[in-house]
């Protein structure tokens, strides 16, 4: 009798756990803040040689290295990397996100936002809020390219079909200084650090995931994970002349627990990543 009950209980538990990821799956948030370890070099002024009445209203500076309040390092991409044919559970809240449009706007002759991620299920809306015409040239690796001329006030929806390993550039031919970065992924677990260096990815499935860190000026940032006092801490290893920063060697495995995973509000990124070219 007892053996039967145990067997039935065991079977029920197994069935329940094998049945649905949604029911048994737990979720956690990932957040943190990147800071630059050192003083940022002065920003480089851009040569605005076209449409000065619209574009030259204020001085424009290169957004290759943007450091905000409290030395916060902006525009760092942090995203989950999946193996070939590996799937990841999607939180039901993201169904609404899938219907949202991501916008890449031309404002005062620069792209807003400078860096973003796009889920393949979302549409990227290329907008032009300027009184002058722009074009948005995107040539994603292995995916359909486009280069539409967008008149003032116009917009063009664009659909990426392929997930990328690295952010892709968007440029304007008419205004050569304009550049933005877009990373199309086949999942929504990605973020770009804001002006103060902070980022947040909500509702990541609990478990270990491989994350990639990338910044346009430095390329891959070498992440390292540690457990400090039972908490997960993310750090960025400094780069030396002998270090071969490759895609695999810079990936970091983070074990996401249920609830909020604050991996550090002062994740120092060494200045060595941004020296030289």
């Amino acid at each position: 009798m007892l053996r039967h009950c145990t067997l039935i209980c065991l079977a029920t538990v197994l069935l329940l756990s094998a049945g649905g990821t949604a029911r048994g799956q737990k979720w956690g948030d990932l957040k943190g803040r990147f800071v630059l370890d050192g003083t940022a070099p002065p920003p480089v002024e851009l040569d605005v040689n076209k449409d000065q009445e619209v574009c030259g209203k204020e001085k424009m500076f290169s957004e290759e290295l943007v450091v905000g309040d409290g030395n916060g390092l902006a525009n760092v991409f942090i995203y989950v990397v999946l193996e070939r044919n590996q799937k990841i559970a999607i939180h039901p809240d993201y169904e609404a996100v899938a219907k949202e449009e991501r916008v890449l706007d031309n404002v005062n002759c620069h792209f807003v936002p400078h860096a973003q991620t796009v889920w393949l299920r979302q549409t990227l809306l290329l907008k032009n809020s300027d009184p002058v015409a722009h074009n948005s040239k995107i040539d994603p690796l292995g995916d359909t390219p486009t280069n539409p001329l967008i008149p003032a006030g116009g917009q063009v929806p664009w659909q990426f079909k392929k997930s990328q390993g690295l952010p892709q550039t968007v440029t304007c031919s008419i205004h050569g200084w304009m550049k933005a970065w877009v990373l199309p992924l086949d999942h929504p677990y990605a973020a770009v650090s804001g002006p103060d260096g902070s980022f947040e990815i909500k509702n990541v499935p609990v478990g270990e995931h491989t994350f990639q860190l990338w910044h346009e000026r430095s390329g891959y940032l070498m992440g390292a994970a540690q457990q400090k006092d039972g908490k997960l801490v993310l750090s960025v290893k400094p780069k030396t002349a002998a270090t071969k920063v490759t895609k695999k060697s810079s990936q970091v495995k983070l074990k996401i627990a249920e609830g909020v995973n604050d991996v550090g509000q002062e994740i120092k990124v060494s200045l060595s990543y941004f020296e030289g070219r």
Partner: protein
Amino acid sequence: MCPSDAGERRRVALEGRRRRAATCCALLWLAAAAGCGGLSAPQFRLNMEDIIRETPDKDPDEFRITGREREQVRQGLLEEMRREKDPQKIEQLEANFGAALDAGTEEVLKLKRDKIKKLKILNTALVALFGTPDEPYVFPESGLDIKKIRLAAGPAQTVNSNVRRGLYRQHCVHCHGISGDGAGPTAVFLNPYPRDYRQGKFKFKSTEFAAKPTDADLLHTLTEGIPGTAMPSFKLLPLDEREALVEYVKYLSMRGEVELAMARYLFVDEEDLELSRSTLVEFLAESAESWSSAAEHVVRPQTQPAHVAATDPAEKARLLAESIERGRKLFAGEKAACVKCHGPTGLGDSEDKLYDDWNKDKDPEKFGAEAATWVLPRQQLRPRNLRLGIYRGGRRPLDLFRRIYTGIYGGPMPGAGPSPGREATLSEEEIWSVVDYIRSLPYEGQVAVPPPRQLTQRSRQSGSLP
């Protein structure tokens, strides 16, 4: 001259002459033999100068760490020590310096051997898929005609009196290179550089922006050449030879795209490539599909300019003038924004920082000393001077329509027409107006020219020409 022993002198002279002749012959033979030793069957040159620099023949395990690499690791460790602020840590690093150095060099050597191993895999995969320049081969999935490719491939020779081989090497290789990389021996003297087929990007075609050119497009380029560039017209070649060359261009392009995709997969994504038929076909499939479906993406205007349909000459002229005026306003207007690059008078002088896709990322500042090793230095691309009357993609109104409608793939020219997912910036009627305006630009401002002068006796004597 002293008439002494003439016979003796002659004998000595002959002796010297014979010896000199013998030495000359020996030297020539040696030179020829040495030269022949350097001849070998041509190989495809690997893509991606920035990723792959050597073509190794040795076994990966034969590679050793070089002195320079060891020194680099040492410098890296020293720099790490310099950066470290904590004195305890510095002591630790000093103590473990030797071990760290060994570990570092081991890692570098392992990466090097891995890279060489991957290169060998890449080479094997490409030979399996496409063969060699002398012995080409195609999978049936590629959709290519191997007979035509064999006609174009191989050394230039005549197999029998009527069939020729090696057409590509006879006509194309000196500019376009053996791999179709646009970096043949004469390429460096040209502006613009010859097309690099390996990216699969062709500028002048009848299809939509991202689509491949059709066979007819490539044949047209071969037959008519590209005015304003060094690409000559091969009109005098028989049609079957031109078609063979078209097929070979497609073959090189497909090979290049597959090579690029595989190289990225191996070296940038750092994956392992399994050498099985299904994996190889997976890499081939996308490129092959884009080529075979090119004909479905031909841009066909749904309308014609109004003045084309008109029959009355006065009406025709009036409609044409109206269209040109409309086109002029659009050209200078904010919607089409042509003047932003092509200049207020269409001279192509409003933008000087443009590059086509092949040259865009070749910033010599970024690459430093490496830029000096490039076969082809970076070349700027100027917006077309529309007053010359030289149109690289063709001078028909239809060709100009297509350039504006789709833009130019491989260059910065944006497209103003619709395509899946986006509405048009300019309607077809507006594009025709701009086309009419552009076609009138080289002749703008011409005063009425009298008919050609008939030669009179006087003009003949004075030697003046019509």
